[in-house]
């Protein structure tokens, strides 16, 4: 417990949209020193990119919310292909009128808010550490959005095709 208190107290506060104060590696490094082996393993496995398989019992509520989010995203895709209006459960309808970047940020912000709700009132529990990792992942992803890099990525993919064939 005392190690957990030390770890949670030593972690810098996170705000949505800020530059990540530390890398995921250094966070895990710090956590490794303070957590039990089983907790550390659970923390390492936890991955927001693959929540179905990695989000354990501590964040059941969050896993359910992510499932709902997926249902909404699936509904948007279906609505788009069937040319109808999407009926959404979790996200605000306005989110899907935004451009892809704004939409992605809105979804991430929603995830951030859900995570904040989960660790609200919890001070020095393992859940706080798990939520911290997920929030750190969100911040790193948010900070990877860069106009110049994005344009370079697009340019590297969109090159004149060479293979021409007669029909």
């Amino acid at each position, binding site marked *: 417990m005392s190690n957990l208190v030390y770890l949670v107290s030593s972690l810098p506060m996170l705000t949505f949209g800020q530059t990540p104060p530390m890398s995921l590696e250094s966070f895990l490094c710090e956590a490794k020193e303070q957590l039990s082996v089983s907790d550390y393993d659970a923390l390492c496995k936890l991955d927001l*990119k*693959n929540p179905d398989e990695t989000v354990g019992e501590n964040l059941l509520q969050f896993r359910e919310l992510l499932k709902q989010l*997926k249902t909404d*995203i*699936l509904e*948007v*895709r279906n609505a*788009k292909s069937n040319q109808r209006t999407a009926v959404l459960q979790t996200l605000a309808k306005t989110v899907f009128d935004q*451009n*892809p*970047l*704004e*939409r*992605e940020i809105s*979804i991430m912000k929603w995830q951030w808010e859900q995570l904040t709700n989960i660790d609200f009132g919890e001070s020095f529990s393992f859940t706080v550490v798990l939520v911290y990792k997920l929030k750190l992942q969100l911040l*790193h*992803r948010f900070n*990877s*959005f*860069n*106009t110049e*890099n*994005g*344009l*370079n*990525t*697009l340019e*590297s*993919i*969109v*090159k*004149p*095709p060479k*293979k*021409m*064939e*007669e*029909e």
Partner: protein
Amino acid sequence: MIGLKIKYTKTERAKQKKILKVSLRMLPLFEAMEKSLMVTINTIAENIERITQAIEQNKKEAAPWIAVFSDEWVEISNYISVNKVITKPVDVAGVRVQQFEKVDFEVAPINNDTPLWVDDAIVLMQSQLQLLAEIECLKAQIELLEEELLEVRARVKLFENRRIPNAKTAIRKISQKLQDDERLMIATAKVVKTKNAEEENE
């Protein structure tokens, strides 16, 4: 014409007249072909310009959200690749060229974990790749048409500067020579006749 040997015969003159007639008939055809090729090349160049503008317009429209392409969670290049560009042969201004039909894409399946922006990115990339493929086809068309234009221009020059003037000169020279020969023949005949008449009188 210099260095060309002319046979000063009526047959040769008839041959040169035929060459002149054919050349005068062919020249306007080649000139029309040259004009048509130039117009076609200009039209294709305008099309390329129009498509280039469409590409820029797409980029401009995507600029507010282009940052999402650098999402560290997604390797967007894995989602799309071009299998082949499909074209069909057509005749443009008398030249066989390949006309753009469509691009056959290989699009990776999108699963439930794929972020939504990937859908928009695929649409944008498909559109840009399609437009670029069309430009490549049009550039290839221009290349072929320009080759043909060079050939047609060479023919026009050949007719204008060589065949027609050469035939005209040949006809003039042969006619001159035949006329001179005829005069000489008449003069000789007259001299012989006068000589014969004088001999009879004596």
